[in-house]
Each structure stands twice: as structure tokens, then as C-alpha cells.
């Protein structure tokens, strides 16, 4: 029983990370209509930046914030100088751009930091929770991911910039007609998604070690989470992330074994696409004309 509970709690912790990345995917999808398959590699790259800052002697907290800021600017620049040019390009060109970004980040990270696994620190590694049920880092992950989800909710729900971003996601032409600078808003959205990814990368790296491929599998889980929740629904991404995290852990521990865990994500993707393409909370908008 304890063992089962332990798996569930662990699942919730990794699930929170999937939720965070799924949220970045959903945000991007809502404003551009595309799934950014390079999101995970961008997060991996950000995590390497954080590792470098920490290796240079920067305290964890400072390195964390600086990395979030650098990722924000990097995401914006990427949108302004690369994706912006493909705004009206056919789907295939956009997919090619994402693949190029994916491979590019992966190659550049391998080139700068080498293929050797690196330890990424957890700020809470020296603490003990006093129970075998949940480790200190899992608690930290849950707390940070939860705080971030709340922050994002508040941002979109209560700030003017959040309202503008939702408007652009909803109707870009009408947004321009009320005077919103749409292309800047999209760039901000990319910056925000990159920051979110960076946080997820820094949370997961202590669990997986840091290497250029660390996010590949995680992106797949996050994608499954986003699809499961409804690819256009931010709350859906959170629920989907938690469900996928727990399912992955339980099935990995009791059913398919650790080696086949990855296939859980693929099975979820296929099942959702076949049986419920709009996901749990995806929109079937009520629209009268």
C-alpha cells in the first residue's frame, strides 16, 4: 500500500512537470496554431545555461531567475528573427522549421557541453522529509510547478497583457483592429513559453541527469498530456499532465515495466487521437450565428 502511494506521489511530481511543459505547448498552440516540437530542446538548452551559471559559482536561486530571464529573451528573439518569417508559411515549412530548431538546439548543446551526463543540483537535496513516501525534491517540484501554474492563471485572468494574449489566440485580425500589436504579443508568448520550459527543465534535471537528450522523452509525455487535456485548454494541460504522470509511474511499476514506460505516452496519444480528439477539456465551442 505504501509502495502504491509512493508511486502515485512520484507520479504527481513528474506529472506536475509534464503539466508545465504541456502548458507551454498549449500556449504556443493557442497563439500560433502549431505544436512547437522544439519546446523540450529549448528547455534542455536553458537547463544547460542554468548549470553553467551554477558551475560559475552563482547561487541556485539567482541562477534560476537569470535562466528564466535569459530564456524569455531567447524565446522572443527566436520568434522575431525565425518564426516570424514563417507566420503565413504552409504547415510543412513550419514543421521543417521546428525540426531544424530541435536538431539545432540538440547539436549545439552537445557541441558546447559535450555528451557526458552532468549532475544538476536540487536546492533541497540536503533536506529530509522524514517519510519514505515523498522525497524533498519531489515536494519542491510540486510546490514550484503549482506556484507557477497559479501565477500563470493569475496572469492570463487578471492582467491586461494576459487579456491581450488571449485575444490574439482567439482572433488575430480582431486583435489588430482594437490596436493590439499582434506580432509583439506573439513574441512575448514565445518568451513566456520558453521561460516556462526552462523552469520545467531545471525541475526535472536533478531526477534525470543533464544531457542533450534529457527532454526528448519528456516532451513526448507532455505532448500526450496536452492532447489528453485538450490541446487548446490550459486547465486541461494541467489535468492531463498529472494523469499522464501517475499513469506512467503506476503502469511502469506494476504493468509494463520501466523499459516500456515510454510506450505509455504513445498509447495515450493514439487513444486520444482516435477516440476523443478534443481531449478532456478541449473546446467544442458553442457558437450561434
Amino acid at each position: 500500500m505504501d509502495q502504491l502511494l509512493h508511486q502515485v506521489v512520484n507520479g504527481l511530481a513528474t506529472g506536475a512537470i509534464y503539466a508545465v511543459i504541456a502548458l507551454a505547448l498549449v500556449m504556443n498552440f493557442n497563439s500560433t496554431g502549431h505544436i512547437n516540437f522544439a519546446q523540450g530542446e529549448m528547455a534542455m538548452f536553458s537547463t544547460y545555461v542554468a548549470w553553467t551559471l551554477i558551475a560559475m559559482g552563482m547561487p541556485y536561486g539567482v541562477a534560476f531567475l537569470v535562466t528564466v530571464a535569459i530564456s524569455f529573451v531567447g524565446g522572443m528573439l527566436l520568434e522575431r528573427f525565425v518564426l516570424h518569417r514563417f507566420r503565413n508559411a504552409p504547415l510543412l515549412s513550419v514543421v521543417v522549421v521546428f525540426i531544424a530548431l530541435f536538431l539545432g538546439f540538440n547539436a549545439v548543446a552537445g557541441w558546447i557541453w559535450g555528451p557526458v551526463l552532468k549532475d544538476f543540483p536540487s536546492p533541497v537535496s540536503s533536506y529530509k522529509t522524514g517519510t519514505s513516501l515523498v522525497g524533498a525534491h519531489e515536494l519542491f517540484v510540486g510546490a514550484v510547478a503549482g506556484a507557477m501554474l497559479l501565477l500563470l492563471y493569475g496572469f492570463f485572468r487578471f492582467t491586461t497583457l494576459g487579456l491581450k494574449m488571449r485575444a490574439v489566440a482567439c482572433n488575430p485580425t480582431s486583435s489588430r483592429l482594437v490596436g493590439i500589436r499582434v506580432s509583439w504579443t506573439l513574441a512575448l508568448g514565445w518568451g513566456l513559453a520558453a521561460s516556462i520550459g526552462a523552469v520545467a527543465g531545471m525541475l526535472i534535471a536533478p531526477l534525470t541527469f543533464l544531457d542533450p537528450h534529457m527532454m526528448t522523452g519528456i516532451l513526448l509525455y507532455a505532448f500526450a498530456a496536452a492532447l489528453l487535456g485538450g490541446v487548446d485548454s490550459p486547465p486541461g494541460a494541467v489535468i492531463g499532465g498529472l494523469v499522464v504522470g501517475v499513469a506512467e509511474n503506476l503502469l511502469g511499476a506494476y504493468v509494463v515495466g520501466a523499459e516500456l514506460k515510454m510506450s505509455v505516452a504513445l498509447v495515450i496519444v493514439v487513444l486520444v487521437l482516435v477516440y476523443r480528439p478534443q481531449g478532456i477539456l478541449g473546446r467544442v465551442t458553442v457558437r450561434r450565428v
Partner: protein
Amino acid sequence: MSASQQTAHPAALLDARGLRAYYGDAPALHGVDLRIEVGGKVALLGANGAGKTTMLRAICGLIRTQGEIAFAGQEIRGFATEDIVRLGIAHVPEGRGTFAELTVEENLRLGGIIHSDKARTRQDIDRFLRYFPRLKERIRQQAGTLSGGEQQMLAISRALMLRPRLMLLDEPSFGLAPLMVLEIFQILKRINEEERVSLLIVEQNARLALELADHGYLLETGRIVLHGSSAELKANEEVQRAYLGYSGSKARRPESTPG
């Protein structure tokens, strides 16, 4: 060709000269001249595909154009849409352009988003909803769930939130029940008088539009073929035959006259 001489020249709010517009390389407007006086109400008439929507898009910088567009004396052609809007041109687009997933209130806040004074935005919402009491009851409702008429009302009040000097309306009667259409046109008349907003109304329903407007322009395959006061246009035989349905079918297009 012109049904009236433009002799008196009160201040023009909008003055387009030789305006051309393109979809890719294909031209859709071939040198259009159109003038709206301060406080004026102008109807832009024409059959389906004549270029009416294109004309409004061209004014707002939503498509590629050539020629001149002066707004309140300032040349605006080639400006980004966002900047044109900020000068005080509100566009109620074809299909209403509702932010369907957002609430009525959020739609209205977005209409006034260029004004940073939040207290005034709240006052404006109250003030403009007085024209549309039934929207007030639905303020927290998702805009996509409103009826067609309510969405048109929302689109107009959202445009008002910009506090525009000129409002462009693209077929505000489209798809609405006759009573709803009458109500909306009465409100547009009041808005023109009480808020001192000039209007450029695109309509296929020429009778309705000429009733409201003081001037009208007739567009045919991207060219203005006729313009004048509403009274002159209503008396014009070609307009009567093709657009007011005095003889023949309403939907019939007039013979094209070379521009």
C-alpha cells in the same frame, strides 16, 4: 458620371484618392475616390464581390494598397493597422469579429485596450451599454454564445470603446431578423449624433443604408460608378432598378459602366 458636384468642401475626415488594393497581385480596387465629412454618414453600396469589404480593409491597412488616404488631414496609407486604429478608426468587420471564447465584458475591455485609463474604460462600458441594454444582462456570458444580433451589438459597442472619430461597418444587417436590423440602424443614427462618430456603412440593403446615410457611393467591380447625396441616389434610375428593387430582381447586378 457623378450625380452631384462636390462644390462646398467642408472639412474631410477621410479622403481617399486613387485608391488601389491588391490580393496578392490581383487588383480588387482600381483607383477609388471616396470622401467622408466630419460627422458624415456615408453608405457604400454594391453587389456581392464589388469590393466593398476590400475598401474597408484598405482603409484599415489590412491589405496591400496604392494611392492616397488622408485621415483628419494626415496621410495614413501604408501605416500598420494597429497605428491606423489608434488614430481613431474603428472597424466592425464582416462576420463581426467577435472574440468568441472571451466574455462580453472582456470583448468590451479589448475594444478600449489602447486607452490605459482603466477607470475610464469601466465608465465607457457603462456608457456605451446604455445603447444596448440587453448586452448588459449578458456581460459575463461567453461572447460566442450570443445570438447574431447580440454579437452585432457587441461588435458596435466594442468599436465605440475605441472612442473613434470614424466607424467602418461591414454589412451590419447581415443575417439578422428585420426587427433587429431596424433597431441596430436606429442606434447607429443615435451614435452618429450623440457620440459624434462619422460612419461608413457597407450594405447590400441599399434602401436601409440610404435611409440612414447622407451620402452614398456605388461600387462596381472595384470602381466607383456613381456617388451623390442619398436623395440623389434614391432618385437615380439605375440605383432604383438594380438596388432598390423597383423593377426586376433585387439581386440582379446593373450593367457595368466603364469607370
